[in-house]
């Protein structure tokens, strides 16, 4: 009310500031509840998406993966499972906003494909710190490898608007050995070391060039499915007050056990204190 009186008091400048500064009542109303009436925590939920706000529909395979991750991490009532030791309290899955793919494989080498992928990571907020990041491949059809099949993945990560060579992150090639079983549907490629410096310096548009090659034994024939465009999975530690900090609750429990049962005050009030002489 103080600020409102100030603005009402100095009418001319107040009106000017009222016109320029967006006022709480300017917020689009979410049905009957304007976001300001909600407790701060639900405001985080509501502000980022008002039901009327347009939204893109997620990739169905990505949604299936995240639902499975949810069941691993939380109970049906939504309580985080306490048997988890890692520190991330946020996991975000991004599908590429643009991709260019050259599916090509030779009978000799079985090169799978190379792809140019563009990811927009604007949804990562400042308090969210990157802990781990993987490219997540879902196999379109089941692929039958023997366990001796070796795959090589060659990654280059860079900022899209930057084309001269110095911008290219030192390309990383990692020797990935896959052993597929009947129901194997996902492949994860760790890109944490490549992505960390970009996310830490608030770069939110990431260009990843991927070259996937699998070698097979001479006498082995295998029908190599083309891998679908990967999603980017980032595991984050949200340091904001609204987020759940696992180690806080563990530390609180420890402290609580330090002070075991205290004689309740009202028992002393009702039945009188023990003789202080005796205690002295």
């Amino acid at each position, binding site marked *: 009310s103080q600020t409102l009186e100030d603005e009402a008091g100095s009418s001319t400048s107040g009106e000017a500031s009222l016109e320029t500064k967006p006022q709480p009542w300017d917020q689009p109303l979410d*049905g009957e509840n304007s976001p300001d009436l909600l407790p701060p*925590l639900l405001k*985080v*939920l509501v502000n*980022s*998406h008002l*039901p009327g*706000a*347009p*939204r*893109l*529909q*997620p*990739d169905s395979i*990505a*949604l299936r993966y*995240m*639902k499975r*991750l*949810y069941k691993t*991490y*939380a109970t*049906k*009532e*939504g*309580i*985080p499972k306490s048997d988890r030791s890692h520190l991330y*309290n*946020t*996991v*975000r*899955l*991004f*599908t590429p906003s643009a991709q260019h793919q050259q599916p090509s494989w030779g009978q000799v080498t079985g090169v799978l494909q190379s792809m140019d992928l563009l990811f*927009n990571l*604007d*949804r990562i907020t400042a308090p969210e710190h990157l802990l781990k990041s993987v490219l997540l491949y879902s196999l379109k059809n089941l692929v039958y490898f023997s366990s001796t099949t070796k795959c090589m993945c060659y990654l280059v990560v860079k900022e899209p608007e930057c084309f001269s060579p110095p911008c290219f992150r030192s390309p990383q090639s990692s020797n990935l050995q896959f052993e597929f079983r009947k129901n194997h549907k996902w492949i994860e490629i760790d890109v944490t070391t490549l992505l960390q410096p970009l996310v830490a310096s608030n770069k939110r548009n990431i260009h990843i060039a991927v070259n996937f090659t699998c070698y097979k034994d001479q006498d082995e024939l295998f029908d190599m499915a083309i891998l679908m465009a990967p999603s980017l999975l980032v595991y984050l530690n*949200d340091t904001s*007050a*609204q*987020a*759940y*900090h696992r180690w806080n*609750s563990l530390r609180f429990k420890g402290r609580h056990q330090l002070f075991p049962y205290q004689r*309740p*005050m*009202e*028992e002393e*009030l*009702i039945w009188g204190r023990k003789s202080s002489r005796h205690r002295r």
Partner: protein
Amino acid sequence: DEGIGHPKAKSPKMLDSNNLSEYFKQFLFPENECELHDFKLSFSQLKWDSWIVAPHRYNPRYCKGDCPRLVRHRYGSPVHTMVQNIIYEKLDSSIPRPSCVPAKYSPLSVLTIEPDGSIAYKEYEDMIATKCTCR
């Protein structure tokens, strides 16, 4: 001493040695005592199920009920709560009696679809009341 006892409590029964605890109970614990209650809602009722994928049902729980006059150990209340109750009963009934409010919470995991089509799993602090107190 007619001054003791909850103003709403029924008139004390004749004191009978073998139900002494019953006798005291009518003074110490009101009928609808402060405690935790369930309230199960689904995000579809709030029209948020288009972007909150999980959980389907959310039970934030809430605290409701009267606070006993001597609330120390049972609710972990500070001595101030008893002082406030005495002020209300003896000095000025415009001062509110102690309120039944949550004392502890547990987190909630939420799976949401972001406006850009990305998907987020987040764990939010203090989303479910797990214990009540009188303050």
